């Protein structure tokens, strides 16, 4: 596990999250979101704990976690940069922006820079299609992203 907490503390925090949410109808996704918010990803070690609390098999929990693009099996960089790659952004040159981002950061999509500064992710639509190309940096949105805007974002995450 890639965390600076003891196994005991990890289990305790996980159980706390699960028990706070397990009363919901269909609690799995809320639990996984909360786990990822707490630890930055969904560690393998949490799957048997969730399985035990929800009376499911570990395989079922694993199946759910791996189905969704949003859940990570390892920590992301300090920043997460999402670039929209869908059609409306394509029509405004998002492929060029994506190439430039890969070049500036020296990584491909779904990778993290060696200094741990930033993870680059593809996203298929941020609903900013009338001000394309669009990007999201740690939840903050950017429209009409051009090379200048992109280099500012990169400078920001590298700081």
């Amino acid at each position, binding site marked *: 596990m890639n965390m600076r907490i003891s196994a005991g503390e990890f289990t305790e925090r996980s159980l706390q999250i699960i028990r706070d949410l397990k009363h*919901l*109808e*269909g*609690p*799995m*996704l*809320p639990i*996984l*979101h909360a786990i990822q918010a707490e630890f930055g990803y969904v560690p393998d070690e949490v799957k048997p704990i969730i399985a035990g609390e*929800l009376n499911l098999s570990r395989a079922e929990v694993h*199946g*759910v976690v791996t*189905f*969704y*693009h*949003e*859940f990570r099996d390892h920590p992301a960089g300090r920043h997460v940069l999402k670039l929209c790659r*869908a*059609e*409306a*952004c*394509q*029509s*405004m040159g998002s492929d060029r922006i994506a190439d430039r981002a890969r070049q500036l950061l020296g990584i491909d999509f779904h990778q993290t820079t060696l200094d741990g500064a930033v993870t680059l992710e593809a*996203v*298929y*639509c*941020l*609903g*900013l*299609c*009338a*001000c*394309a190309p*669009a990007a*999201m940096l740690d*939840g*903050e*949105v*950017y*429209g*009409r992203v051009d090379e200048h805007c992109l280099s500012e974002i990169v400078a920001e995450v590298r700081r």
Partner: protein
Amino acid sequence: MTVTIFVPRDAAALALGAEKVAKAITQEIAARGLDAKVVRNGSRGMFWLEPLVEVRTDQGRIAYGPVKADDVAGLFDAGFLTGGGHALCLGLTKEIPFLRQQTRLTFSRCGVTDPLSLEDYRHYQGLKGLEKAIAMAQAEIVREVTDSGLRGRGGAGFPTGIKWKTVMEAAGPQKYIVCNADEGDSATFADRMIMEGDPFVLIEGMTIAGIATGATKGYVYIRSEYPHAIATMTEAVEIARTAGILGASVLGSAHAFDIEIRSGAGAYVCGEETSLLNSLEGKRGIVRAKPPLPALQGFLGRPTVVNNVISLASVPVIMDRGAAFYRDFGMGRSRGTIPIQIAGNVKYGGLYETAFGLSLGEIVDHIGGGTASGRPVKAVQVGGPLGAYFPRALFDTPFDYEAFAARDGLIGHAGITVFDDSADMLKQARFAMEFCAIESCGKCTPCRIGSTRGVETADKIAQGIEPEKNKALLADLCNTMKFGSLCALGGFTPYPVMSAMNHFPEDFSPAPMVEAAE
């Protein structure tokens, strides 16, 4: 009197710098010791003018845009608090042609009000539909919605009233209203704008649906790519609960209804209703075979209405103004209004709510003003990643469910992406297959395998490898996917692929590779 300045909080406005503008205005008000306040409204949906700042004056609201933080001091110098002239002044907001020509029923408050002010909501006719519904019998509400002609705005176009009737008549200890806010189609943002700009209208629509069908619990499943919408909806539900709109006694009536906000996790296929239900239950978002219909065995196997945001948000105005009022807009079997979202490479991109029936050409050329790049329009994709590419030759197609179907297309969630002549349609066809491969839930073979084979086949055509044979293969693959897939993802991916191939054959015949000199 305190002057009110409006600066949108809509995600697209924020993406274009609205936060900095709001901050600069607040600082300027303080520095100049003025009696003015900033209200964060939704967006009017004119994104080439965002951030669009408005000032309430005696003559009405006056718009300025697009405003950058650097422009703010100049605006104050020009006396914009009293509507003073400035290079960015657009005159009265309601007189801006793009807005003036619309018929805003569902979006009547979006961009006008403070999204989280119930006082604003009531002032602009909010809750009137719900108040009427409370005084009516369940069957009467359902009949009103049926008579309005409202059809599912998520894309399927199924009559909303008929869905409600099935759930109303279904027996069950617990029924549900599930709002599908998994708006994943590129070129669409109407759901997002409503949730961020007028969340109470969705809450009101869901509550009416609950009363009509006997459901007491509602869920809004919002995609995780929309953090602003999730935040606004969560806050709005809390406010509605405190005000007694939601809870054990809706507006003091005998009806109970409550809403919970749920977040998706980045799976496009969860916009398909059965896949969404599985996801809501905490399972993999795998598509379910129908029957059983979700209306009878939906969330947790119980009777469930699954409706799109816009369908539900259109219900309050129908209940308030009556079925006939709504039905009188539109054409053929497409009744009422549709929020068309004009996006991509377009000069005037935004949300345009109007009665069904405008031609595609009017929308793209006149309302959208052609491309942003100034180059000729080559193709427009209507209905998101599963929608067909239309060439200029088909621009006479009226915006109507049946008219688009007759031309091998679909209006879907009413998003339009404009492409200029630099677009490579073979590349777009390949992307449609690639997207399907990335997002396929994996349940049925035509979608899961067909999409990957489709990418490979498109690549072969691009490389000039047996192009005629591979084009025939791609068409055959599309045929299998169209008729053999369980849901719209695999079933509709052939639309963009086949339309690209049929309407733009020149892009599928790349120049043969030049043999290297020996």
